[in-house]
């Protein structure tokens, strides 16, 4: 049916959208208030540098403690933000964090774009291979082989320069899995990180096969170029903390050696930090994962679905409108949403839009991206359902005096809903699962919790299986509710 929505209706819909966007206003860093708030980006899944303590679930690690000491010395109010390594630099660029404390190695490319503090770690690269690989002992042997690296890590470049093909992984842990499974030949990484991993995991299926060159690498805090004041304050703090032995003490605690001065990292001694059984790990992580589900995935799903449905109805009505420009806009929207990956949409909203002044916090950003996605997919379902309501229904509503919006709301949409419920149920199930992607834009949720613990304990299979189980249970409960809802909506049909 060709019906034209009145402009006021569309304005109302846009208003709702605007209100949603507005709730995600830019985070105020409180530049003028004392003490200065400094947001610190760190992975939280890279022991012993940055990870959650398995017993307390508190963020800790060498980089985290160094950062806390620097923050205290500099008089900063620190706010830690956990995100995958590859999200940290975009987050710094888009002013969601102010500094990265995550073993960031100084290199020319980064120096061109960022400010670095005085280094607080000196290390060198090593090559990790499977235990029975014996033809890789130096960088020269990597030519033509495949290594697993995180995309933005310095080691990816080292491996490429050596002539290796690089396969990108999200964290060090999954890379080790690939080496064990023989899917890649090696990993190039920091000697300290590798030694810690081997000691912590007790994994004897991989080994350090050799040094990755003689170069000593320096790791430091990374700042935006527009924040020289933060860099100077950090440098002053690092000098004080080096002179009074604080950094050395932190380093001794983690590595049994002082890695904060050049030449101190040749012989590190790392003790095992997690001795729990698989069952204990699973048991201890079940609750944080449940909290992630209740505080992350479920509210994300509910908000995004509700807003997405509003968008879907608006887009469907625009598609059915006799006003051609509305139809065009709705077509373009639906086509873009269905033709691009959700993860790209998430990254555009969160990391991209700040470039044009739209700066959303993680939660609103995830809701905006997921809502737009759901709206685009559901719009065609809603449109087809509206078209399935006979034209006579609209006419009957018109002759009893209803306006366009009344007849839609009271007569057409309730009948369309009955048709739309089964396909929209599928949309909802997809959305629930898609919320696992929200951790990529810094929203804490169930799967993120699983990843954090898995990185620290290497219990990949049990933890990811448990994450899958959580999702499955939620989806199953939702699908159970679908039957009664369909019956209720169909109660009038014989």
């Amino acid at each position, binding site marked *: 049916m060709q019906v034209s929505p009145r402009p006021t209706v569309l304005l109302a819909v846009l208003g709702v959208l605007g209100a949603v966007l507005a709730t995600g206003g830019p985070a105020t860093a409180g530049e003028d208030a004392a003490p200065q708030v400094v947001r610190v980006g760190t992975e939280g899944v890279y022991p012993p540098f940055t990870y959650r303590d398995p017993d307390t679930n508190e963020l800790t690690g060498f980089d985290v403690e160094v950062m806390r000491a620097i923050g205290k010395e500099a008089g900063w109010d620190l706010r830690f933000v956990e995100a995958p390594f590859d999200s940290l630099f975009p987050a710094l660029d888009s002013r969601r964090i102010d500094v990265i404390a995550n073993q960031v190695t100084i290199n020319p490319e980064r120096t061109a774009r960022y400010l670095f503090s005085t280094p607080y770690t000196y290390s060198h690269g090593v090559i990790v291979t499977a235990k029975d690989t014996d033809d890789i002992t130096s960088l020269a042997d990597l030519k033509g082989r495949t290594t697993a690296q995180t995309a933005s890590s310095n080691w990816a470049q080292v491996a490429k320069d050596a002539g290796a093909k690089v396969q990108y992984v999200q964290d060090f842990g999954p890379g080790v899995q690939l080496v064990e499974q023989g899917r890649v030949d090696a990993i190039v990484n920091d000697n300290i990180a590798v030694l810690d991993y081997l000691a912590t995991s007790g994994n004897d299926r991989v080994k350090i096969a050799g040094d990755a060159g003689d170069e000593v690498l320096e790791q430091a805090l990374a700042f935006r170029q527009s924040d020289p004041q933060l860099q100077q304050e950090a440098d002053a703090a690092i000098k004080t903390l080096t002179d009074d032995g604080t950094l050395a003490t932190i380093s001794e605690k983690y590595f049994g050696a002082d890695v904060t001065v050049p030449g101190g990292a040749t012989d590190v001694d790392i003790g095992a930090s997690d001795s729990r059984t698989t069952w204990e790990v699973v048991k201890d992580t079940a609750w944080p994962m449940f909290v992630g589900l209740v505080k992350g995935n479920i509210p994300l799903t509910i908000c995004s679905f509700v807003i997405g449905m509003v968008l879907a109805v608006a887009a469907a009505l625009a598609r059915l409108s006799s006003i051609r420009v509305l139809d065009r806009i709705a077509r373009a929207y639906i086509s873009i949403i269905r033709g691009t990956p959700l993860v790209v949409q998430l990254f555009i909203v969160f990391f991209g839009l700040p470039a044009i002044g739209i700066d959303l916090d993680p939660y609103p950003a995830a809701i905006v991206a997921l809502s737009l996605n759901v709206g685009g997919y559901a719009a065609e379902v809603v449109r087809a359902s509206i078209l399935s309501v006979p034209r*006579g229904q609209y006419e*009957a509503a018109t*002759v009893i005096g*209803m306006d366009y919006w*009344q007849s839609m709301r009271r007569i057409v949409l309730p*009948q369309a809903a009955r048709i739309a419920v089964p396909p929209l149920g599928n949309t909802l199930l997809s959305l629930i699962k898609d919320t696992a992607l929200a951790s990529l834009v810094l929203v804490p949720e169930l799967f993120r919790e699983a990843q954090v613990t898995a990185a620290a304990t290497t219990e990949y299979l049990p933890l990811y299986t448990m994450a899958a189980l959580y999702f499955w249970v939620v989806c199953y409960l939702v699908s159970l509710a679908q039957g009664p809802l369909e019956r209720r909506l169909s109660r*009038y*049909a014989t």
Partner: protein
Amino acid sequence: MTDMIEVRGLEKSFGDHHVLRGVDFAAESGTVTVLLGPSGSGKTTILRSMNVLETPDAGVVRIGDASVDFTAKPDRRAIAALRSRSGMVFQAHNLFPHKTVLGNLVEGPVQVQKRPVDEAAADARTLLAQVGLAGREGSYPSQLSGGQQQRVGIARALALRPEVLLLDEPTSALDPELVGEVLAVIRDLAAENWTLVIVTHEVRFARDVADQVLFLDEGVVVERGGAEVLTDPREERTKRFLSRVLDAG
């Protein structure tokens, strides 16, 4: 006495097809006007122009004190006022399937006319009794027979307390054995001096109730008069049509 309904110079084209070519008629309050003619003659379009389900290209429609001139682009408020003067009974009843019989009847009074629910429901029960469906308030349309559905359709149109009732082939979609019960209800309305405009092929019924008959062909009124048009037509086209319809019936 002024006419309740006045239609002047009604023109309507669908693309190249000129459906109405200057139709005029008037009807006094309390009278029954029957629109008759072969299919495609424009009679349904006249009815649908009277409540602006179709927008005529030119002409004036007045019901009671609400008048719309379609020669200029009419504004929405004038159309709403005109619509509120009439109730419409559709060939396919078009009841709201997701609402009960009572829900169908109170929808317009409560949602559009903003009357209190209790008052609208009491009115609705009276109307249901009048069309012989007392006690079926809680049924869904799908639980009723075709004749019952159409009687609910009539009651729904009356629930808005219109000045005029427009009936678009109210019995054409019904099984033959169900036609009588619906015609009986319409006969009652005529007896109660409702102003009715009916498009129908039920010639015998029309003879009984019509005060005015308009015979249409190709968008013009070919012949008009009282019920005698149906028994003793002057125009050749009317005669041919009537003999065909009566033979078929």
